[in-house]
């Protein structure tokens, strides 16, 4: 059995490195398309200012991209270094989208990003535009594939356990690729990236407008960001709701915890907008509820029931009992692999194997599990309510905040009065960090809500790690934190430096302080 501290430290390290990585990913996703839009306008109108916009925002994109690549390297190798048992147990399925991501997406994105920066003088206008689109397509394709991998962790379809190799094996590639969870997750995540990119361009442009510099440049950037951002913010919210629907279908425990549904309500369930969940007494204080809404989001119907935590626990207790039988049947089969009767015994109960493995946290021989251990395993199987409840509401609150920012920005951009609306510009500047916070909260809900599993219902987190010592993990975790923090400081330093310099950093002689007319923005 792996020590509890090793499991916790492995989780902490993965969470920390993933959160760092996702500081850079959404901006890459969003800005790559914004760059493509700006350059399209340049190619279509021939106006130089749009080329300068592509180059300048491209510079900021590059500063961010470098750290996206850096922190992404860790993600590709961390499964092997820190989650060795996971890698063995599900590598047959999970490894495939990761390898395809390299072949299909990373090569495309990374080969053409070089030409994006260095190919301006060597490619025709349309040639360079195509390169920019390929970068955007490459980065979005990589999101498709990694979300297919992640969706499989949430909803492991198209796979079956093989007792000979002692692992999960792929039974249908198409089920893996067309996992419904993957589709809604993909659109939700890339839209979140587009929102982040738009909010960034909107906010930095608003800052120039507030300072009264590079007006023409900033005005055009602001308009593009406002329109793209509005469409993306709507998409994030609609697909977030779609994700909720799929969570209800595939991860009842996550949904129940996130919504603090302590007891099953008669259909259609009401939605708790606000409340203070109390884990100890299993109740939510000061609840504000909207009738019917949860039932509609979760089941797309008025008559299907969404199970609450009380009913889920009963169901899980039953599966754990069957899981004990499955673990024992597997052990018997491993001792006598050719025995057809033992194979039949195991096959009959193997769907619950994962639930039996939940007990391995407390006892090596699961048939020796006491009722107290089983009760703890049942308790483990429901993720902690309060962190999910709050994170989810904070994410939704933030998304409504930037949705209204984009609605107003778009409205005043269409009326061409946004430059006078100082309050709106200030809001845009101070709103820059909000989408990042929302993105990280969203990932927290998705992954913390998956606990206690790495592969929902299949492989418990406490069985997924490598056989490392807590000391090694403390050392590596500290190493990551030190390196990433230093790199983040360097990144932010350059980001601020170049954002402050503005388009003048291109050295074209047309912008702020480069000559008097440009300073006035004429």
């Amino acid at each position, binding site marked *: 059995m792996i020590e509890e501290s090793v499991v916790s430290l492995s989780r902490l390290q993965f969470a920390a490195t993933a959160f760092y990585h996702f500081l850079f990913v959404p901006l890459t996703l969003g800005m790559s398309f914004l760059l493509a839009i700006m350059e399209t306008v340049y190619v279509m109108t021939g106006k130089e200012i749009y080329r300068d916009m592509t180059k300048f925002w491209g510079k900021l994109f590059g500063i961010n991209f*470098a750290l996206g690549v850096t922190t992404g390297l860790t993600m*590709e190798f961390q499964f092997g270094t820190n989650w060795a048992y996971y890698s063995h147990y599900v590598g047959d399925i999970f490894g495939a989208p990761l390898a395809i991501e390299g072949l299909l997406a990373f090569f495309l994105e990374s080969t053409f990003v070089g030409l994006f920066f260095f190919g301006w003088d060597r490619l025709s206008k349309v040639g360079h535009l195509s390169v920019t689109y390929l970068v955007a397509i490459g980065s979005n394709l990589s999101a498709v594939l990694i979300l297919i991998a992640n969706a499989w962790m949430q909803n492991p379809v198209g796979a079956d356990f093989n007792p000979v190799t002692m692992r999960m094996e792929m039974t249908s590639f198409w089920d893996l690729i067309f996992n419904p969870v993957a589709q809604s997750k993909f659109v939700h995540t890339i839209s979140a990236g587009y929102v982040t990119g738009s909010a960034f361009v909107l906010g930095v442009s608003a800052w120039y407008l507030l300072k009264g510099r590079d007006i023409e440049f900033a005005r055009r950037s602001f308009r593009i960001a406002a329109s793209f951002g509005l469409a993306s913010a709507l998409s994030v919210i609609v697909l977030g709701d779609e994700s909720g629907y799929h969570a209800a279908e595939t991860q009842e425990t996550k949904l129940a915890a996130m919504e603090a549904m302590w007891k099953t309500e008669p259909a259609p369930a009401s939605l708790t907008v606000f409340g203070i969940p109390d884990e100890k007494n299993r109740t939510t204080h000061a609840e504000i509820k909207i009738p019917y809404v949860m039932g509609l989001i979760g089941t797309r119907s008025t008559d299907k029931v969404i199970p609450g935590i009380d009913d889920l626990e009963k169901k899980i207790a039953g599966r754990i009992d069957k899981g004990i039988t499955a673990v024992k049947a597997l052990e018997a089969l491993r001792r006598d692999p050719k025995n057809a009767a033992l194979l039949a015994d195991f096959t009959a109960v193997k769907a619950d194997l994962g639930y039996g493995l939940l007990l391995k946290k407390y006892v090596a021989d699961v048939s020796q599990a006491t009722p107290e251990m089983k009760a703890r395993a049942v308790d483990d199987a429901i993720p902690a309510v309060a962190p999910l409840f709050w994170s989810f509401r904070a994410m939704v609150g933030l998304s409504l905040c930037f949705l209204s920012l984009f609605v107003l920005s778009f409205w005043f951009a269409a009326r061409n009065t946004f430059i006078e609306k100082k309050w709106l510009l200030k809001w845009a500047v101070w709103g820059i960090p909000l989408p990042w916070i929302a993105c990280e909260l969203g990932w927290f809900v998705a992954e913390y809500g998956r606990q206690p599993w790495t592969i929902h219902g299949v492989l418990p987190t406490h069985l997924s790690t490598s056989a490392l010592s807590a000391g090694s993990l403390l050392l590596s975790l500290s190493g990551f934190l030190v390196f990433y923090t230093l790199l983040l400081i360097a990144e932010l330093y350059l980001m601020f430096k170049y954002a402050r310099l503005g388009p003048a950093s291109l050295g074209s002689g047309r912008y702020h302080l480069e000559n008097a007319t440009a300073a006035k923005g004429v």
Partner: protein
Amino acid sequence: MIDYEVLKLIWWLLVGVLLLGFAIMDGHDMGVGTLLPFVGKSDDERRVILNSVGPHWEGNQVWFITAGGAIFAAWPLVYAAAFSGFYFAMLAVLWALFFRPVGFDYRSKVADPRWRSFWDWGIFAGSAVPALVFGVAFGNVIQGVPFHFSEIMMPYYTGSFWALFNPFALLCGGVSLTMLVAHGANYLAIRTEGPIQQRARKASVIFTVLMLAGFALGGVMVAGMPGYVITSVVDPAAAQSPLAKTVIQQSGAWLANYQAYPLTLAVPLLGFAGGLLSLLCIAGRRDGLAFISTAIAELGIIFTAGVSIFPFVLPSSSQPGSSLTVWDCVSSQRTLGIMFWVALIMTPIIIVYTSWAYRVMRGKVTVEHIRATDRASY
């Protein structure tokens, strides 16, 4: 569906091809990065060197990432056992690699010479450390790694971190580093002119000679080293657990394949031939051909490691029965089949557009060019 046995062999070859792709592509820019502080004497010269790989290193690095992903998908047990076993060696590679993307992109964005010098050494470390550690890892694999699997297939590494740096492994690290540096020097000779080109050619000769000497010495050491032999009957076409077989250590076993199939001797000979050819080409100022020659040397040297230990891919010194072979470290037949088709379709496409990217950016990188494009260049 393709036979499982054939697929297992194809994937042995494909992993080799991906590692070779890494050595040829990422290898040359790692070589360039290692030479950066030594061959570039002034800031302008260093910028010439950086910009010779500037538009391409990012794409090249994907060979490394994809090799990692492909090993995950095709050889999950190797991915799990080797990466967790070589934990701090892997982290040293990762942490060193951190300095590359950031170094390339951030270095010339600030004019302060201390800032630039810091990132130059960062790029040096990010290039030299992985090149060295990969060789060290190979050196340990060839000798056998102290690891075993539990009954449920959890890998346990029982060696220490410092034991990885034994004499033979360090020699392999040296071969790997000198090989990539020689290859990088040849690339630099193609893309630069004047003093940088002359220094690059000189470096190419020095590092090629060191590589050849190291490779030869390695061969002698392998001949005297215990190899591994499977002693039970293995059905290559079946899905199987690595724990189902028996393995013993045997002196001279790593030469068995060459004795049984003398044609395989062509593989190490290619390693020597490529190196010698590179020396000749550099003497005759044929930098492009020299680059191809070091690529051939890389082909020979990487596949020599693979052929010598075949069918093993990760032998275990502490519990030989836990050794991983090409027959039992693999994914299921379906996964191998799907991944084979993906690789077969995508690899040529990748090679085509990568070649196009190099074509677009072809020509010498000069100090004048860097000065003229000061704000846009690395």
